[in-house]
């Protein structure tokens, strides 16, 4: 069965933009988790560009929570950009739209927490 998720990492100064394309589910959410933790372990801020995400489930959201928590602990910035409506619905259900920093554009110089 073909791959469902493509991840591209673009490094800008201290920020990594992780661009996701495809579907994030239980089968691939471990890859997302690992990619986030890899970048954060290198003292980098992380911005996830979600424009290409057609579907995300709770395991994908859990990977993001872990990234967010790791970033907070390390004093790094963590944000999501261009979140599609279907993914926003899941974030709202989990009330994470109040927790994650959500951006309209994937700007590596984002102001954030």
């Amino acid at each position, binding site marked *: 069965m073909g791959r469902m998720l493509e991840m591209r990492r673009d490094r800008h100064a201290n920020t990594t933009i992780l661009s996701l394309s495809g*579907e994030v589910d239980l*089968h691939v959410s471990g890859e997302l988790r690992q990619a986030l933790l890899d970048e954060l372990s290198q003292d980098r801020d992380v911005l996830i560009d979600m424009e290409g995400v057609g579907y995300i*489930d709770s395991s994908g959201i859990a*990977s993001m929570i872990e990234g967010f*928590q790791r970033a907070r602990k390390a004093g790094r910035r963590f944000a999501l950009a261009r979140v599609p409506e*279907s993914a926003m*619905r899941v974030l709202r259900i989990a009330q994470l739209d109040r927790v994650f920093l959500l951006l309209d554009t994937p700007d590596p110089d984002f102001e954030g927490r």
Partner: protein
Amino acid sequence: MTASKAFAAADGDSRPSPTMASDTVFELHLAARSRTLKIVRAAVTALGEDAGCSLKATEELVSAVDEACQNVIRHAYKKECDGRIVIKASCEGDRLVLRVVDFAEPVDPEKIRPRPLDELRPGGIGTRVIRACVDEVAFETPQQGAGNCLRLIKRIS
């Protein structure tokens, strides 16, 4: 992918039951593995679209069924690879009824509760997604030989 194609692509025993109620749209037999979730989503998307659901309602139904299957894979079968999931979909009046059946040890529904949202931690979101995305969700007595049967109902809107 249409529901019939998804059915043909099912990984595992794909033979339908000898009898199938007239309102049954499909019965999908799958290996309880994460890679088969994609097939589940394709079939449920086709179901929602064919029934005349809006995009939002279809996406909600897909999320609910995907999360239910995920719970079976992760918690009922504890990620063991030889389990089976059966998804029965029927159209009953203005409602779509999905049953997610597994053959694992029966679970205690009282122990399956969404976590409080003020606790920020990975995990426990799936159950909340299921409840938010369908109109009714309940465990029902499974057929003989099955372990658990979760029934999801979504009004066609």
